[in-house]
C-alpha cells in the first residue's frame, strides 16, 4: 500500500497521535488473516476524530494497536507516533510509561476494565501513583476529585465502593476518571457507550466532553453508531475491510459523502427524527479479508462498480478541499442505491383502527420473581417486580413498538404473554381469547397464530439442523405432515429473500442477516397473525439491518401481519412502528401513535429518552437541547407506591411539596392526553 498520508497538512511530529501505514495481521489456521491493511490517521491536539465502521472493519484493532494491546498472534507493521514518540516496537516498559500518562484508553465493557476485588478509589489512586510521584494520601484525594469531575454523586463515599456496587454507567464514569487521571494527550475510546442504555449513553458522552474540556486531550472515538459520531466528532474516518475509505470533517461527511459505502451506510441507518423514509440497504455483506482479490474491496457490493474498480483505489482528496478524502475512482451522484418499494397495505389493514379486531390485548400484566436467601433453609426475603402493570393493544395489520431500557421488563413481559397461561395479575387476550382459560389443546393451537423472532439469529437456530428442517419445525409442531411441510419450504425461503436451494445448508453457513431471515421464515411458516419480534435487528450491522427492516415492512403489508416489535433502539422503532408503548421499570408510562409520541412526548421519561437518542446529523445534534436524567433506575426489588420514575424526574424536581407528595403516594394512572396518546403521569401537560 503506497497511499500517501491521509492528511499531509499536519506533520506527524506535532500531531497528538499519528498512525502511518498501519498493517495488522492475525495468525490463523490457514495463514495470516489481515485485519488492518494500511491505515493512516492523524489526530490533532484537542480534536475529536470519529472512527466509524461495521463489525470486522478493523476499527477496534486500530485503537488496540495504537495502545500496544494486541495479542501475541497479531503482527503489526507501520508506525504509530504519540506526540513524536514511536509506540510500535517499543518495549513493554516504555509502553507502560506512555500508557495512561500520554495515551489513555476507555473500553467498551466497563465491568471487565475494573478489577473486582479493589475499591474504585484505590484503582484510580493507583493509576495516579503509577505516573506521578505523590503520596498515597494525595493520590486518594485526587481520585475523589476525579470521581467528582465525572459526575459521581458523593464521591468521597463512593470512592470506597467496589465495582460491583456501581451500575454500568457509573463504572464507565470511573473508567473515564481513570483515563483522565494523568492528563493524557490522547484518549482512545473504543465503543465507550455500546453496552449502555440510551439515557446513560447521553450521560457518558457528556462526561467524555467534560473530560476532554478539562484535560484538553484529543479523543479518538471508535463507534459503529453514526449518531454518536455525529454528535461528538470534529472529523470522521470511515473504515471498510481494514482500510480508511473516506475521511472528512463531520459536516462535510454527513452532508456530502463521496464514497459509495458511506453513502450506503447513511442511507441505511434509520433516524429517530424522520420516520417513513424508506431505508436503502447496501446489498451483500462485508468481504472475507482472507480472500480479497486486490481490487476495490467494496466493488462486489457497489452499484457503480465496473472495470475501473479492478485496482484498490488510494485515499485521495479532490478539488480544493483537501481535507475531504475518499478511496473511490467514481463520482457517485444522487439516487445511488435503488429505493426499495414497499407495497401498499392490504385492504383489511386500511380500515380505521378502532374497527379492526384486536390481535393482542394486555391489561395490567404483572410478574414478580421471588428472592431467596440461605442454602439450607431457603426462605423468601423479597420480590423483584419485573413487570408491574403493562397495557398493550395491537390491532390487525399494526406494528406496536415496545420501547424500554434494559431492566425495564420487556423480555419478561414477552415471555409472560407467550406462555399462554394465566398471568400472575392482569389479563392477556390473544385473538380475542383470554389466555387464562385456555385448555392445553387450545393453547397449542393458538401457538400457531403467535410466533416469535429472537434477537440473536445464531443462538435461535439449532446449529445441528439444516435450514429446511428448522423452517419446517413449527409446521410439524402444528401437525402438518412431513411432505406437506417440505413442500412449503422453498417458497418460504424465497419469501424472505433466500434461495430454495439453501434448504439443506446449516445455519453457520449463512451471514448474520441471512440467519435472521431464516428465523423470520420459520416464524412465518404457520401463517401467524401476530409476530413477536424481540430486538430482531440489534445484533446486525446497519447496512444489513436495513434489509431486514425492509423485509419486515414488506411482509407486514403483503400478509397483513401484526407485529409486537420490542427494541431499545428508538430510531428503529420510529421507522417501523405504527404505535409505540414506552416502558419504565415494568410499567407502561406512555403509549400512542408513533408520530405523535415522537413529535410531542408527554411523559418526562419519554421526553428524556427521545432527547438522548443520537441523530446521525451533526448540525441537528449540536443544536439539540438534551434532557439529561440524573442517576440510574432504582432497584426493581422495591415496590414503589407512587411513581417509579420520580427519583430521576426533572418535572418532579421542579414541583412544590404538596404536589410531590402526590407523586410519592399515588401511582399515576394512564391518562389520555389528546387523541390516542396516553401517559401515566400526574403532571404531564395535556
Amino acid at each position, binding site marked *: 500500500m503506497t497511499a500517501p498520508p491521509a492528511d499531509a497538512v499536519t506533520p506527524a511530529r506535532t500531531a497528538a497521535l499519528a498512525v502511518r501505514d498501519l498493517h495488522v495481521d492475525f495468525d490463523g489456521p490457514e495463514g495470516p488473516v489481515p485485519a488492518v491493511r494500511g491505515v493512516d490517521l492523524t489526530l490533532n491536539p484537542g480534536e475529536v476524530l470519529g472512527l466509524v465502521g461495521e463489525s470486522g472493519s478493523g476499527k477496534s484493532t486500530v485503537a488496540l494497536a495504537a495502545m500496544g494491546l494486541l495479542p501475541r498472534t497479531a503482527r503489526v507493521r507501520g508506525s504509530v507516533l504519540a506526540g513524536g514518540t514511536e509506540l510500535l516496537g517499543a518495549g513493554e516498559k516504555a509502553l507502560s510509561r506512555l500508557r495512561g500518562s500520554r495515551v489513555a484508553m476507555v473500553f467498551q465493557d466497563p465491568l471487565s476494565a475494573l478489577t473486582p476485588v479493589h475499591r474504585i478509589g484505590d484503582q484510580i489512586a493507583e493509576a495516579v501513583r503509577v505516573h506521578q510521584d505523590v503520596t498515597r494520601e494525595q493520590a486518594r484525594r485526587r481520585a475523589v476529585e476525579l470521581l467528582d469531575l465525572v459526575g459521581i454523586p458523593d464521591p468521597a463515599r463512593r470512592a470506597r465502593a467496589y465495582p460491583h456496587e456501581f451500575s454500568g454507567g457509573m463504572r464507565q464514569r470511573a473508567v473515564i476518571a481513570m483515563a483522565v487521571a494523568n492528563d493524557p494527550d490522547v484518549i482512545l475510546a473504543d465503543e465507550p457507550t455500546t453496552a449502555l442504555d440510551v439515557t446513560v449513553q447521553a450521560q457518558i458522552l457528556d462526561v467524555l466532553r467534560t473530560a476532554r474540556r478539562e484535560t484538553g486531550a484529543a479523543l479518538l472515538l471508535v463507534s459503529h453508531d453514526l449518531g454518536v459520531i455525529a454528535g461528538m466528532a470534529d472529523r470522521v474516518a470511515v473504515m471498510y475491510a481494514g482500510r480508511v475509505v473516506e475521511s472528512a470533517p463531520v459536516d462535510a461527511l454527513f452532508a456530502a459523502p463521496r464514497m459509495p459505502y458511506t453513502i450506503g451506510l447513511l442511507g441505511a441507518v434509520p433516524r429517530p427524527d424522520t420516520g417513513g423514509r424508506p431505508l436503502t440497504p447496501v446489498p451483500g455483506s462485508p468481504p472475507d479479508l482472507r480472500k480479497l482479490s486486490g481490487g476495490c474491496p467494496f466493488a462486489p457490493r457497489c452499484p457503480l462498480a465496473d472495470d475501473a474498480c479492478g485496482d484498490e483505489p488510494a485515499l485521495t482528496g479532490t478539488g480544493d478541499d483537501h481535507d475531504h478524502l475518499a478511496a473511490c475512482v467514481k463520482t457517485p451522484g444522487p439516487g445511488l442505491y435503488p429505493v426499495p418499494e414497499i407495497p401498499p397495505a392490504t385492504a383489511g389493514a386500511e380500515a380505521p383502527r378502532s374497527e379492526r379486531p384486536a390481535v393482542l390485548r394486555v391489561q395490567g400484566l404483572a410478574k414478580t420473581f421471588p428472592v431467596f436467601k440461605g442454602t439450607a433453609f431457603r426462605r423468601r426475603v423479597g420480590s423483584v417486580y419485573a413487570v408491574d402493570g403493562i397495557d398493550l393493544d395491537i390491532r390487525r395489520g399494526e406494528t406496536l413498538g415496545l420501547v424500554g431500557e434494559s431492566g425495564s421488563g420487556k423480555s419478561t413481559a414477552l415471555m409472560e404473554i407467550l406462555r399462554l397461561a394465566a398471568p400472575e395479575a392482569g389479563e392477556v387476550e390473544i385473538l380475542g381469547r383470554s389466555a387464562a382459560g385456555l385448555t392445553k389443546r387450545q393453547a397449542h393451537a393458538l401457538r400457531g397464530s403467535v410466533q416469535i423472532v429472537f434477537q440473536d439469529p445464531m443462538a435461535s437456530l439449532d446449529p445441528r439442523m439444516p435450514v429446511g428442517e428448522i423452517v419446517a419445525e413449527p409446521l410439524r409442531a402444528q401437525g402438518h405432515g412431513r411432505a406437506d411441510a417440505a413442500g412449503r419450504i*422453498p417458497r418460504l425461503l424465497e419469501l424472505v429473500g433466500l434461495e430454495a436451494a439453501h434448504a439443506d445448508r446449516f445455519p453457520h453457513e449463512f451471514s448474520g442477516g441471512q440467519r435472521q431471515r431464516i428465523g423470520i421464515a420459520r416464524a412465518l411458516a404457520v401463517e401467524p397473525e401476530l409476530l413477536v419480534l424481540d430486538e430482531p435487528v440489534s445484533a446486525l450491522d446497519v447496512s444489513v439491518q436495513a434489509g431486514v427492516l425492509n423485509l419486515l415492512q414488506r411482509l407486514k403489508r403483503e*400478509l397483513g401481519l401484526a407485529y409486537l416489535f420490542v427494541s431499545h433502539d428508538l430510531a428503529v422503532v420510529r421507522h417501523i412502528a405504527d404505535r409505540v408503548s414506552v416502558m419504565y421499570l415494568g410499567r407502561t408510562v406512555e403509549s400512542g401513535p408513533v408520530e405523535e409520541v415522537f413529535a410531542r412526548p408527554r411523559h418526562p421519561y419519554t421526553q428524556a429518552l427521545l432527547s438522548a437518542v443520537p441523530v446521525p446529523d451533526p448540525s441537528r445534534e449540536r443544536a439539540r437541547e438534551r434532557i439529561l436524567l440524573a442517576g440510574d433506575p432504582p432497584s426493581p426489588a422495591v415496590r414503589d407506591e407512587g411513581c417509579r420514575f420520580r427519583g430521576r424526574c426533572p418535572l418532579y424536581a421542579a414541583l412544590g411539596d404538596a404536589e410531590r407528595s402526590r407523586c410519592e403516594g399515588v401511582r399515576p394512572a394512564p391518562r389520555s392526553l389528546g387523541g390516542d396518546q396516553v401517559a401515566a403521569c400526574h403532571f404531564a401537560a395535556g
Partner: protein
Amino acid sequence: MTTTATVPTADPAASAPPAARGRGRVALRRFAANRNALTGAVVLLLLFLLAFAGPYLTPWSHTDIDYSALREAPSADHWWGTNRIGQDVYAQVLHGLQKSLLIGLLTALTATVLASVVGACAGYFGGWTDRIMTFFIDLLLVFPAFLIIAIVSPRLRERGWIVFVGLLAVFGWMITARVVRSMTRSLKEREFVRAAQLMGVHPLRIIARHILPNVSSFLIVDATIAVGGAVMSETGLSYFGFGVQPPDVSLGTLIADGSDAALTYPWMFFFAAGLLVVFVLAVNFLGDGLRDALDPTSGHHRTRRRPRRKGTTHDRAAR
C-alpha cells in the same frame, strides 16, 4: 388472513425439484466422504464377517481338542496354532471375537441410550423428575457394581450372555448420564430450544430433535470408549469366574489365558490381542467419523468443496 395473502401453501407441482434433504441424509453424505470413518466401518464389518463366517472354514470347533497337537505353532492343519490342551486357536479366537463384538457393542449402545434418555429427561424437565432421577443415578453410583454382578450373574447364567450385557450396561451409564444432564440444563436455556417450546413442539420431541443431537459429540466419544471398557470389564469378571465361563470363550478370557505364554508361544496370545486392538481402533475411527458427520460445523472438507456464496442471495434479499 386477507385475500391478498401470499403465504405459501403446499403446492406439489411447484415444490417438486428442490425438496430439502433431512439431516439424516446430510449426515450420511458427510459420513461417506470421511475416509477414516469408512475405514472404521469396513473393518468392523470385516470383523463381523470373520467372526461369524470364519468358523465354517475350519473343521475344528472351539471345544474340539486335538491330542496330537499340543502347543503347536501355526501350520496347515491348525492355521493359528493350538493351545496347551490342543484346542484350535483359530476356532477359539473367532468364537471369542463373536462374544466380544456383541458384548462390547451392545453394552456400549445400551448404556449410552440409557444415559442419554435419563440424563436428558432429568436435565430438561427439572423439578421433581430431576430430583428422583438424580437420586437414582447417585444410588447406582454408590452400589459396588463388581460385587453385585458377582452375586447376581451365577443365578442368571442359564439365560446366557445377553443378561451379562444387561448387567454391564446397568452399571455403566451413570456418569455419562450426569454429564448429559448438566449439558442439557445449559442447552435448555439456549434460544433455539426456547423457540421450539414457544412453537408448541412436544417436550420429548425437543429432547430428540434439539437436545440429543447437540450432545451427540460427547455421547459418541463416550460410547467408543465404553466399547473398549465393556470388553475389559467382561475380561475382568470372566477372570474371576463370573462372566463368560469355559468351555465358552471370549477375547478377554483368551488373552488372560495366553498372556503367560505371550513370549514363549506367541500365537496363543497375539491373535486374540491383535483382533481386540483392531476392533477397538475400528470403533474409534467409526465414532470419530460419525461425530464429524453429525456436527455440521466440524471439518473443512465440505466448505472447501463447496465455497459459500453469500453475496448472491443478498442481492436478491435487498430488494
